[in-house]
């Protein structure tokens, strides 16, 4: 199997792909074009339609409308050819628990028709890359959650796929394991076409060349993380964290600044002119002490909030 990437071709292209379950529309006419070698992220909250989209692209679920091509092969007309060039690391850790890491990798390599010797060599490289070399002979059920997830991703890479689908690859992992997996995904940039789904905005921000924001089955924004962040107001925002902030105090701040939003920890104040001294002058007479005040960086969460009126983690 070749891992060569044609730079002028779309590796993944969807044409109004949809999936309905009775009255419920899980994916609603999604049009995407992912370039070869691109690290592309589908970002959205739980239930937005990310996994359903991936399942259709992996030929696990038949679309009820539209279609898609993977490396030029139609997912409905030629699923076997699609399966020859893809690999997927599903949302849940997908490993055979009674097999050891070598056997798990050998299983996936064998299913993709890779010769034993080549599979053994590739498996060794992947175990090394994922930091599992010393535990390769242990049955997978003895692994920690992070190790299982790394093995799961290695199983997706052992067949040297041209297109790799990573469905929520760091879901439920501790920050250290998440960071380790990010490094492995980062290493694939430009070598494989990677379609990553996540509801962690920092994950999409850190890894993706481009991000498609999906909500209620529809793509609501598409661009590089920088482009998306640039689309919302470039007015600076100051975050003021203070305890016992009253409605009356917030109203008093609104007399001073036109846009003041109440947040869990305090308030967000829009505007270049926001000054911590002026804010203090409003709050101190009311017995409210500022715990911290800082200029906020625009995140993809802000983009999502701007586009949908709700937060990504709601």
């Amino acid at each position, binding site marked *: 199997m070749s891992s060569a990437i044609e730079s002028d071709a779309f590796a993944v292209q969807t044409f109004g792909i949809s999936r309905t379950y009775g009255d419920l529309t899980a994916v609603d006419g999604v049009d995407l074009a992912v370039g070869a070698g691109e690290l592309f992220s589908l970002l959205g909250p739980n239930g937005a339609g990310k996994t359903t989209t991936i399942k259709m692209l992996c030929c696990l679920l038949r679309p009820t409308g539209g279609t898609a091509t993977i490396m030029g092969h139609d997912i409905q007309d030629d699923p076997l050819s699609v399966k020859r060039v893809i690999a*997927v690391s599903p949302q849940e850790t*997908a490993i055979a628990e009674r097999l050891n890491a070598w056997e798990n990798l050998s*299983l996936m390599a064998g299913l993709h028709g890779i010769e034993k010797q080549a599979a053994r060599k590739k498996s060794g490289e992947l175990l090394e890359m994922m930091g599992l070399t010393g535990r390769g002979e242990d049955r997978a059920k003895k692994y920690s959650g992070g190790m299982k997830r790394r093995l799961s991703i290695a199983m997706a890479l052992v067949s040297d796929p041209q297109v790799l689908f990573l469905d929520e690859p760091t879901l439920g992992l501790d920050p250290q394991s998440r960071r380790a997996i990010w490094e492995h995904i980062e290493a694939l940039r430009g070598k494989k076409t990677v379609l990553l789904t996540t509801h962690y905005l920092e994950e999409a921000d850190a890894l993706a060349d481009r991000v498609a924001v999906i909500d209620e089955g529809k793509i609501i924004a598409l661009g590089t993380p920088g482009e998306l962040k640039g689309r919302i107001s470039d007015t600076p925002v100051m975050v003021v964290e203070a305890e016992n902030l009253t409605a009356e105090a917030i109203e008093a701040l609104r007399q001073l600044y036109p846009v003041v939003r109440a947040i869990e920890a305090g308030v967000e104040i829009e505007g270049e002119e926001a000054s911590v001294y002026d804010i203090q002058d409003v709050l101190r007479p009311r017995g409210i002490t500022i715990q911290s005040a800082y200029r906020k960086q625009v995140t993809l969460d802000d983009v999502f909030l701007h586009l949908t009126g709700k937060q990504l983690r709601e």
Partner: protein
Amino acid sequence: MRSLELATRNFKEVWRDPLSLGITIGLPVLLLLVLQAFGEFEEVFTPTSLTPGIVLFGFVMLMFSAAMTLSRDRESALFARLLTAPVRASDFVAAYSLPYLSVAIIQGIVLFAIGAFLGLEVDGSVGLVFLVIFVTAVFYIGLGMILGSLLPLAPLSGAYAVVLLLTIFGGAWMDLEAIGGVFQSIGNALPFAHALDATRAVMIDGVGFPAVATDFYWVVGYTLVIVALALILFKRKMLE
């Protein structure tokens, strides 16, 4: 032979599960040892009469185990991953059936060896006995594939009970002629009595293939239908 890769994984899963092996092989052995003790009072409990019925009982356990594995796997993320590999439905059915067929062969050999130790006699061809038993094993495992493809884990035990009762009352342990009526008609329409009649005829009466051909083809026919059905169902299940 991509199915072999998956079969190897399933083979390891099956043979590394002591509980499942204890139930599929140990329980029938225990049953044989206990029931044969009544052999001096009832002819049906002699090792020669008893062993083929116990083998079928073992196959029902095996069918249940195969169905459980497939049903449990179907719910797992690993199965979704396996379905994204370039593997056909027939490869999957073969990969899930072959490991259980290996257990069935061991099961048959162990039970017949214990039966022989206890006094089981085969007047006819041992090869023919094993041929009938083998085809019957394929039938039960195919049935396990169908049940595992169709049902989630919870209702499987109900399906297992139905197949077990059909096996017992379908002629495996009951004399259909003695029962008569509707039960006899149902029993004769099912493959279990035919498998047992053929096996016992070869073992006890020492007859050759022509004498058991009808019973044999009856079992083969059922097996082919069941395997074809398993393939069709599995193909459908590959795309939710």
